[in-house]
């Protein structure tokens, strides 16, 4: 396992270095976990791109660095303490000519390449140090940069070569990657938000409306990039309110629809969520978390909006809330979100966060061509008689038509209404209509994803977590177990509704229950207690905008 950290200013091309290196590693058959850190600005500041590369599966971001690629001298100062004793620090020799550190390897960029190719040269040196195949990296770079039709790629190729050659002659022992089996066919490199977009496309997404907001925008940009091929209408709205109301309108008219936003935009959508619930219109909402309140830390990560989403929207109505823990789950649960939205005819939520959004992994293969589309689930128009959009039914779910299916008229209303969709103030009818809507929770429960139990069957300690915390928590369990402690984790990739049956007994029988979440309040722990009465003894929270890591969790556990 190697931990590579690329650091520098926005605008220096450090993401390019990270992406090409990652792609090379994935093509080489390795697993990766990428963690990106950036600031709310376009140029300058201090950004990072960390890659954890391993021969076998890995899912957690970890602390520590084996290879630091520092594009500025500030980067050296900020990160040298994280570098292992036998690690390596690559940087510009001109910036720190007299650096007294065994780990330092100053690169004479000025001699090797023009200034604007510095990042590519650094990539070459780093790749050489890792023992990556020169051609592999060159192809990855060509695909990444050439794919962008970048006219400068020829210059880049040379810079890469220069760097690689320079680096090859100065390889540090111990930094080379270990051998791996041949890369699995169909394995691709995706981050969480790309996987959500692709999962949604595979499910039959046909309408996406949005207002830009970090870290949700990349879901939209991925859909937009393929909208023409996939027949999807995308529209940037004037605000989040318009985005959600457009999506509800589109879904009402028969286009499976999605919106994506972050907390501050999501709260503006809540009335629309309530509208989707009242009109019983399928709708998938992606909420990409970042630290709040208000504008907060716009480019950092958090898991602070669980309570918000579970209680979002005025009035009472059923909903499903998914929280993928891995990039694969981003794909699968995006699909399931559409399936549940269609089956239950209402709003379904999908959580992500800045960490997961930007975290590239080696994933797949996805049998994309064979996956059945899930939407829309439409009834057949009645042979005779009037169509009643909100007719009673066994499950609470009324047969759904959309306009254009023959003569049937589809009447939907945000006011309380009769079965034919027209507004009513008959209070008994209103109460019955509300009760039928609530009954739909049964359909949602029928499609639930149970939580995953990981580790010891009868543990002394069980760590309860959700969403993107998964990797860090599971690895914490591994490390505890390796130290001889019977530990386990319970991970929820669906956080609402909570059905105690699959886990409550085992959880209640465990020793100490500790919630581990990227928030201060222990929000999942609170929901668990409310729904099952099971009480977590402690909460390990993180609110500094960085993702949970095994090291962070172990430190907090030890601090008790």
């Amino acid at each position, binding site marked *: 396992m190697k931990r590579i950290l690329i650091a520098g200013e926005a605008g220096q091309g450090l993401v390019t270095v990270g992406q090409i290196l990652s792609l090379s590693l994935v*093509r080489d058959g390795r697993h990766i976990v990428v963690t990106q850190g950036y600031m709310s600005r376009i140029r300058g500041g201090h950004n990072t791109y960390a890659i954890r590369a391993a021969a076998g599966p890995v899912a957690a971001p970890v602390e520590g660095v084996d290879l630091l690629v520092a594009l500025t001298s500030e980067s050296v100062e900020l990160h040298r303490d994280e570098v292992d004793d036998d690690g390596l620090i690559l940087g510009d020799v001109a910036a720190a000519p007299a650096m007294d550190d065994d780990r330092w390897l100053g690169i004479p960029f000025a001699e090797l390449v023009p200034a604007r190719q510095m990042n590519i040269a650094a990539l070459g040196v780093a790749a050489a140090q890792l023992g990556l195949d020169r051609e592999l990296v060159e192809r990855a770079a060509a695909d990444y940069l050439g794919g962008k039709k970048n006219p400068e790629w020829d210059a880049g190729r040379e810079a890469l070569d220069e760097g690689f050659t320079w680096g090859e002659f100065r390889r540090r022992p111990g930094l080379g990657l270990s051998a791996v089996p041949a890369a699995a066919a*169909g394995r*691709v*490199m995706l981050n969480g938000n*790309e996987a959500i977009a*692709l999962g949604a496309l*595979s*499910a*039959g997404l*046909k*309408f996406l*409306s949005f207002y830009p907001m970090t870290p949700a925008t990349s879901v939209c940009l991925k859909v937009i990039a*393929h909208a*023409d*091929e*996939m*027949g*999807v*209408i995308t*529209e940037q*709205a*004037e*605000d989040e*309110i*318009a985005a959600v*109301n*457009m999506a*509800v*309108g*589109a*879904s*009402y*008219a*028969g*286009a*499976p*629809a999605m919106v994506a936003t972050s907390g501050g935009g999501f709260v503006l959508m809540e*009335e*629309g969520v309530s*509208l989707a619930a009242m*009109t019983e219109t399928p709708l998938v909402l992606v909420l990409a978390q970042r630290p709040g309140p208000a504008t907060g830390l716009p480019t950092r990560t958090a898991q602070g909006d669980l309570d918000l989403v579970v209680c979002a929207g005025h009035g009472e109505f059923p909903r499903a809330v998914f929280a993928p823990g891995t990039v694969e789950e981003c794909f699968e649960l995006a699909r399931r979100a559409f399936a549940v939205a269609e089956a239950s005819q209402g709003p379904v939520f999908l959580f992500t966060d800045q960490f997961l959004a930007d975290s590239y992994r080696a994933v*797949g293969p996805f049998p*994309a*061509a064979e996956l059945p*589309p899930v*939407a*829309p689930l439409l009834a057949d128009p009645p042979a005779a008689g009037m169509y009643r959009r909100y007719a009673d039914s066994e499950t609470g779910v009324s047969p759904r038509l*959309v*306009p*254009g299916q023959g*003569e049937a*008229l589809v*009447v*939907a*209303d*945000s*006011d309380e209404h009769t079965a034919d*969709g*027209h*507004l009513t103030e008959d209070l008994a009818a209103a109460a019955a209509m509300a009760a039928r809507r609530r009954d739909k929770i049964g359909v949602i429960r029928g499609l639930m994803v149970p939580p995953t139990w990981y580790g010891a069957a009868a543990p002394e300690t069980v760590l309860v977590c959700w969403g993107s915390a998964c990797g860090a928590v599971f690895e914490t369990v591994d490390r505890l177990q390796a130290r001889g402690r019977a530990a386990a984790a319970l991970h929820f990739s669906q956080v609402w509704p909570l059905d105690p049956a699959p886990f409550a007994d085992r959880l209640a029988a465990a020793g100490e229950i500790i919630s581990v979440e990227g928030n201060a309040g222990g929000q999942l722990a609170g929901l668990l207690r409310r729904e099952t009465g099971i009480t977590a003894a402690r909460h390990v929270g993180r609110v500094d905008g960085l993702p949970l890591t095994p090291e962070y969790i172990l430190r907090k556990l030890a601090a008790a």
Partner: protein
Amino acid sequence: MAKATIFDNHLEPAWCPGCGNFAILPAVKQALVNRGLAPSEVLFVSGIGQAAKAPHYLRAHVFNGLHGRALPAATGAKLANPDLEVIVESGDGCIYGEGGNHFLAAIRRNVNLTVLVHNNQVYGLTKGQASPTSAAGMITKAQPHGSSGPPFNPLATAIVLDAGFVARGSAGRPEELTALIEAGMDHPGLALIDILQPCVSFNKRQTWAWYREHCEPVPTDHDHGDRDAALRLAFAAEEERFFCGILYRGARPPLENRFPMSAGGILGRVPVNGGALAEIIAAHG
């Protein structure tokens, strides 16, 4: 000619006796009949307010959404199924007040919608507060010193935003209104029809009689393509001269033209292109 009654339904309007909405409803139905439309070809989208109840009182598809949000909901629906004749029908508070940002954006976006704004210059359903179009100085319980600021001029604003079809109708001029609605539906892009409407309960000044006095037809020699002339007609509202008819026409293509996938029919019924998706994913390897 088909009878307007194919659009009739059984619900009794919950409007006050004498309300201007009662005159608008048949004009809308007549326009649909004149255009030879069947109820299942038409979708009405409204917000919340007295005007926004109108779609419940006829036979068609109805999406009665949130206060202020009729335009975005209609936009989504029209893009999802361009075969539908989509008509937005709501109040001045809904479209110009709570929904003001959508009004600006919808005009720029130019989706093929026909937008009927029942402009009674007041918030009717919530009992008579000033709306954006209320006359300056109008006294209400919420504005005891009178509504402040000049009334919002929806037509002048729409003209400045280069809307493709800008017209004014009046509840008191039903035949003209029917013709305007037909022309609006004919227009391939967003058509705005602001409809002057007496609110007999809360707007005691702008009564049926008042509108009869203050309305006049757009001069027959008016050139719809002349923006300056159109603005002059729109600005006449500042002197409480309300020109009824088509004030302005432009020729921007509707947004739908940008979306070849939105060729017709229910968009969700188009199968997922699994082959293309497989290639997209493979390109990440």
